[in-house]
């Protein structure tokens, strides 16, 4: 939690593109690698079955390509992160080194999980993502500079505007993306709300003995 309370205004670094619509979280991290009590070791399993065949042989995949080593911005297409709510997926990507994801659209649970980790999910149009993907595929060394305030990404000579939900923008720019802290601020009101609820006040759970 050392990264909590930190303002995220700008993200810089090189990028890599993982193409395709509806990339689900089972593909981002296969379930068999979720048998871990902590998230610490997950980075290495990002897109594992897309990167290695069953004999462990390396496949053609951007995450295996040395030209993209150290990239911190991930470019994706539509509905990225659909399926399972596993936070293991954004945790794996973050631990791989990803600090921001730019795509056409994101599954909601995935985007929420990313926000909670301080990884912005930024949306651009189909034409823009294609332009950015082509750019990094041709010139992997291109530096990206993402400015959350102006909602623009500068990549080489390209400048693209992205959208970011008002709530995401607010939490990153104010450094309050760690939701637990702001939720804890409202504890008194939480208890007041609970006390008003009929299923707590008027007909609570029946709790049989044993």
């Amino acid at each position, binding site marked *: 939690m050392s990264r909590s309370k930190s303002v995220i205004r700008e993200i810089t670094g090189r990028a890599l593109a993982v193409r395709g619509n509806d990339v689900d979280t089972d593909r981002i991290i296969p379930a068999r690698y979720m048998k871990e009590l902590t998230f610490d070791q997950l980075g290495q399993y990002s897109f594992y079955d897309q990167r290695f065949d069953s004999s462990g042989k390396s496949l053609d995949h951007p995450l295996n390509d040395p030209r993209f080593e150290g990239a911190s911005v991930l470019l994706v297409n539509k509905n990225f992160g659909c399926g399972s*709510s596993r936070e293991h997926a954004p945790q794996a990507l973050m631990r791989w080194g990803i600090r921001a994801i730019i795509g056409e659209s994101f599954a909601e649970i995935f985007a929420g999980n990313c926000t909670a980790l301080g990884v912005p999910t930024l949306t651009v149009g189909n034409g823009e993502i294609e332009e950015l993907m082509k750019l990094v595929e041709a010139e992997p060394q291109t530096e990206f500079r993402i400015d959350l305030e102006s909602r623009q990404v500068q990549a080489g000579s390209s400048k693209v505007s992205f959208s970011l939900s008002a709530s995401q923008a607010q939490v990153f720019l104010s450094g309050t993306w760690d939701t637990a802290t702001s939720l804890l601020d409202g*504890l008194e009101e939480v208890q007041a709300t609970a006390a008003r609820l009929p299923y707590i006040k008027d007909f609570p759970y029946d709790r049989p003995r044993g």
Partner: protein
Amino acid sequence: MGKNLLKKVWEMHKVRTLPSGQDQLFIGLHLIHEVTSPQAFAMLAERSLKVLHPERTFATVDHIVPTDDQNRPFKDELAEQMIQALEGNTAEHGITFFGLDSGLQGIVHIIGPELGLSQPGMTIACGDSHTSTHGALGAIAFGVGTSQVRDVLATQTLALNPLKVRRIEVKGTLGSGVYSKDIILRVIAELGVKGGLGHAYEYGGPAIEALPMEARLTICNMSIEGGARAGYINPDRVTFEYLKDRRFVPKGEGFERAVQYWKQIASDPDAEYDDRFELDADTLEPMVAWGINPGQAVGVLEKLPVLSELKTEDREVAEIAYSHTRFRQGRPIKGQKIDVAFIGSCTNGRISDLREAARLVQGHKAAAHVKALVVPGSQAVAGQAESEGLPEIFLQAGFQWRRAGCSMCLGMNPDVLQGDQVCASSSNRNFIGRQGSPTGRTLLMSPAMVAAAALAGEVADVRELAQGGRE
């Protein structure tokens, strides 16, 4: 204009507006399991936080439990570590844990409704996307990530963006051999796997109202596969009758008070919706999801799509699907050979699912080359099935009868596909690698269709096997 259920529940549970503009929403029931909670408890410990409402938090173990040999310690050391962590965390924080020796253990989305923990007008959260299941009781239920599990443990609230509501009206009557699974697979095929982004789905209309609770749970379960954040059905007489006398449901006068609230919380007859969609149950046929997402589904008598006839976007995903499945374009899915048949999961592992499958396989034999598995969704479902003699029917038909767990729905326990096996599955996802083998292939269908496929050794039309039943 009146209000819909989501709006009413949201207003009652809203604590305040957060500085981010999101709403802080009180969560009435928090369900936890072994996979997405240990890291959340570690986050609490790091900040010296306590569980705010342990009495509104309930735990069970489902994803990693073996369904054959459940003796402890588990053979899989990692699985053993995960169940021990949950045992330790629940004991430390005073959380009720339905463990393997409780008689109440099961898949989290099976036991919530079964125990009467999930009730109408409640907000429910769980670190699992299929939490949408509980919406069938008229609850608003969210699947969340682990940081949010931490948030609920520490504050009993979530930071959420308000949702739009799409009313999905299902008219007509389901024919025999056609089930609620077929309704939801058709809805997702029509609206797409991202069609529900930003929305909750409210299912209603004559075909939905005619469904018993267990069939409704199947529909809401797969809301997330259509991209919807939640799915629900307004509480009605079916709901109240289902809940009456369940373990955690108030009895006597308490029940009467509960029913009063449950009635009020339903959408008003003139409720407003952000969007509407209509489906006709009369013309629905048994569905099979053939591709790599649950939206790639066709009627059992339809042909698989021809790439050149698809829109660009659908074509790209279909190309990946064909390269993974190696199925042929333009051919019917009926007749596709299968290797494995799986009946179970939070989608279709309830007693009514098992009864219907048993009715169909009774006196028949699974094809010799098919490995067929029946996995009850909970210990209570298993007990009920045993009291009705269902395991004997399955065993005589060449099916294996297992213990409760998530089993072959996802590759986190010993039940996995081998190589490129084709599995007829009553589960919810046909994603690449979902059933534990990176090259495995999953065909999603109703449990009755799985039973039919197991007997035929290939995808079959359950309506030809025998006079199909009705839900």
